[in-house]
């Protein structure tokens, strides 16, 4: 399960609206627990795929190193990533799968329909290596104050 605050949930969705019709991307910092990935902070990143930003994203390794350094100082770790699919479902694509290498991390995808954030889904990359990795649908728990809300998943 992926747990994140309502503010972070809204912030990553707003990022996708701001960059529409291009894909946005960012990093989820927090704690990887045995039962869940708990988000404590989200960090926006630039999409370096300016050649095809409407349907591709890439986070520069230099950005990741900077973000990793920041997270270490805060006692947090990289537990996942997010990006948007402009006018496309919030489902992982063959490209998303081929380019996913952070096993154990959550990959959050928000569909942006005509500039408005629609469905947000999360997928947990599981497995032990590149050969047996797979994406699993991951429930998202949005923490609103002391009340947690289970998010609906877009129909498959």
């Amino acid at each position, binding site marked *: 399960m992926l747990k994140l605050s309502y503010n972070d949930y809204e912030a990553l969705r707003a990022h996708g609206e701001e960059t529409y019709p291009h894909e946005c991307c960012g990093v989820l910092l927090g704690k990887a627990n045995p039962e869940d990935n708990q988000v404590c902070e989200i960090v926006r990143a630039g999409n370096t795929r300016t050649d095809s930003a409407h349907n591709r994203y890439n986070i520069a390794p230099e950005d990741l190193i900077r973000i990793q350094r920041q997270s*270490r100082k805060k006692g947090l770790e990289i537990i996942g990533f997010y990006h948007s699919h402009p006018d496309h479902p919030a489902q992982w694509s063959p490209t998303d799968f081929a*380019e996913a290498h952070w096993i154990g991390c959550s990959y959050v995808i928000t569909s942006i329909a005509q500039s408005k954030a629609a469905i947000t889904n999360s997928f947990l990359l599981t497995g032990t*290596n590149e050969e047996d990795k797979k994406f699993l649908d991951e429930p998202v728990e949005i923490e609103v104050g002391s009340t947690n809300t289970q998010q609906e998943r877009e129909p498959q």
Partner: protein
Amino acid sequence: MNINIPTPLRSYTGGQQTVSVPGATVGEVLESLTGTYPELRQHLYSAEGKLRSFVNLYLNDDDIRYLPLKEATPVEDSDELSIIPSIAGGY
């Protein structure tokens, strides 16, 4: 020198975010790393022994692919090596 281990590979370093291994060059440090933590090797290198294309290695702020001496680059104890798998995708 210290090597920063990314989240998905920490299970192969006993959960450590940073490990310290000896070596005078980037290549020697990587040999020390995979010698100390042999399970890491298959995640960093292909069966042919080449660094996997999605694995980025940074010496401080420099991608070792673009350093003139690449893995033969000398290192100091105060340097920092980061292993960063790539992040990309789209539809």
